[in-house]
């Protein structure tokens, strides 16, 4: 009798993949991965940091590199990766399209356009590029999703995003031709997507904003599960569709805009990380959103550490956005080609 009950419990466990116990196990494991990634990232680089010396004497070169450069940069990477991956996961559910990604949806195009304009106008002070990027990202996301919702096809928003990116790229090119060489350099570096140095206060404000935005997404995750079945089905199961959509859109827009404002264009993180995790964990957003946040953080921190290692090869540091694009572009094409058979 007990074996029957046990077998039965095992069958239910295999069929219902989201349980608090499993979530705790998965998220705990991913958290360890993030910590490990942060550890690797702060120790790796052109200048080998002696950890004991840095910790015992923060005034030494070791300490200054660790606390002044490596740790802020690693934390920034974690923050941006978490934001992009969790937002990607939420958008994929909302738009019922596994190809949805903040980068593809034109948010990044909008942000880039905003930042380029700010740099071109010489508004480097007062966090001008970040602010303009923020406004551009929110505007682009609103535009793309409004256009995409007018026709409720899961591809409409995506196509609008692609077109918007092309439009933004054209305007940026136009601005670039008008710039002086030194300003052009700044624009180019910003556009490539890099994790640079940010002041502790910026990190703190950004981190608080991300925590709130991702917390909201996690709180909405059960309703996102139902929305992934379609608006009408979700409504018939008790989801206030319009309100939920609005909440998720505002939270993802803010999160992504803040990430782009801090790190420039880092593409495809929102595509790669949720996709890999979905293969492992299933489609339940209650687990996928926090798992994507942690997985995205670890992924981007490691990718950034990787770019620093490339310094030894190229004698220049390629932006981390290049690494994610090199990984993400082919994945996108592969996903598109096998979409008919995607589970």
């Amino acid at each position: 009798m007990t074996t029957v009950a046990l077998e039965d419990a095992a069958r239910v466990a295999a069929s219902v993949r989201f349980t608090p116990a499993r979530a705790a196990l998965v998220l705990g494991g991913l958290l360890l991965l993030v910590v490990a990634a942060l550890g690797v990232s702060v120790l790796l680089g052109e200048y080998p940091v002696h950890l004991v010396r840095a910790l015992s004497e923060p005034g030494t070169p070791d300490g200054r590199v660790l606390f002044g450069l490596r740790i802020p940069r690693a934390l920034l990477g974690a923050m941006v990766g978490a934001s992009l991956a969790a937002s990607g996961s939420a958008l994929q559910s909302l738009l019922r399209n596994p190809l949805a990604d903040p980068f593809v949806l034109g948010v990044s195009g909008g942000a880039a356009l905003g930042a380029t304009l700010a740099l071109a106008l010489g508004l480097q002070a007062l966090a001008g590029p970040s602010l303009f990027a923020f406004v551009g990202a929110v505007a682009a996301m609103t535009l793309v999703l409004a256009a995409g919702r007018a026709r409720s096809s899961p591809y409409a928003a995506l196509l609008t995003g692609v077109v918007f990116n092309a439009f933004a790229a054209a305007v940026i090119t136009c601005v670039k031709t008008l710039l002086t060489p030194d300003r052009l350099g700044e624009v180019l570096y910003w556009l490539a997507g890099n994790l640079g140095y940010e002041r502790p206060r910026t990190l703190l404000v950004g981190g608080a904003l991300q925590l709130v935005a991702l917390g909201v997404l996690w709180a909405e995750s059960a309703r996102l599960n139902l929305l992934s079945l379609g608006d009408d089905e979700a409504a018939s199961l008790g989801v206030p569709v319009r309100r939920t959509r609005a909440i998720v859109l505002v939270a993802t827009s803010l999160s992504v805009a803040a990430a782009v404002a801090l790190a420039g264009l880092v593409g495809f993180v929102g595509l790669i990380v949720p996709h890999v995790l979905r293969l492992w964990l299933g489609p339940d957003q209650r687990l996928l959103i926090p798992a994507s946040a942690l997985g995205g953080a670890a992924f981007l921190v490691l990718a950034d550490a990787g770019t620093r290692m490339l310094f030894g090869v190229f004698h220049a540091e390629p932006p981390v956005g290049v690494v994610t694009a090199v990984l993400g572009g082919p994945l996108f094409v592969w996903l598109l080609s096998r979409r008919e058979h995607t589970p």
Partner: protein
Amino acid sequence: MTTSAALETSALSVGYGPCAVVSELSLTVAPGALWAVLGPNGAGKSTLLRTVLGFVPPLGGALHLFGTPLERWERRGLARRVAWVPQTFDGESGFTGLELVLMGRSPHQGGWGLPGPRDLAIARAVMAELRIAHLAGRVVSRLSGGERRLLLVARALAQEPDLLLLDEPTAFLDLQHQAQVLERVRARVRGGLAAIAVLHDPNLAAAFADAVLLLRDGRVLGQGPATELLDSDRLGRLYGLGLAEARTDSGHRLFAPRGRP
């Protein structure tokens, strides 16, 4: 206004945009009754159900659910009383069969949808009842159209509604499952459920429904007890083709298109 009716409409017009697909519909669906909606394609049967669910705003007239006007219902409260089996299901979903059926419990759960033992028990009982317990661990997007359809019926039954709206619940189903789904709905109707099913087979309507609503060309061709309304003459006019009628030994009526002589 009787508060006992699950659904009550008066002079209701439904449709998209300015054109009404069905107009002047006055219908009362009481608990313990199974209504079948019959009519040619495009007669507005699905639109009627979608209007009752509040997805399409009514173009005119009044619509009350359990005595309360439709616009006064909020989504979650409505989902505890009214369930819907949609006509189509796009199968991108990677959820398992049991996960999908458990979603029917979500209006009864906390906001985060963690199933309690009772939710699990209900979901699994419904799946056993429809003989789809073996689909519990299967990924929905890899199932056949009929299997998905059975899961959607199971989800709606797990919702434990007082009014069940079924949009072609028998589509994609083999003969045995068609009868089984309607039998299980029928059993709940005996227990006080009100149900409205859009059907394409008048024989199923004759076998299972208490009452029928016949829609054609934007108007009601007839509504009332199935035994009185279903005859070859009226159904012939409904579908615009000649129908032959026969009776089985047990007294059931059967309808079929007249073949060529």
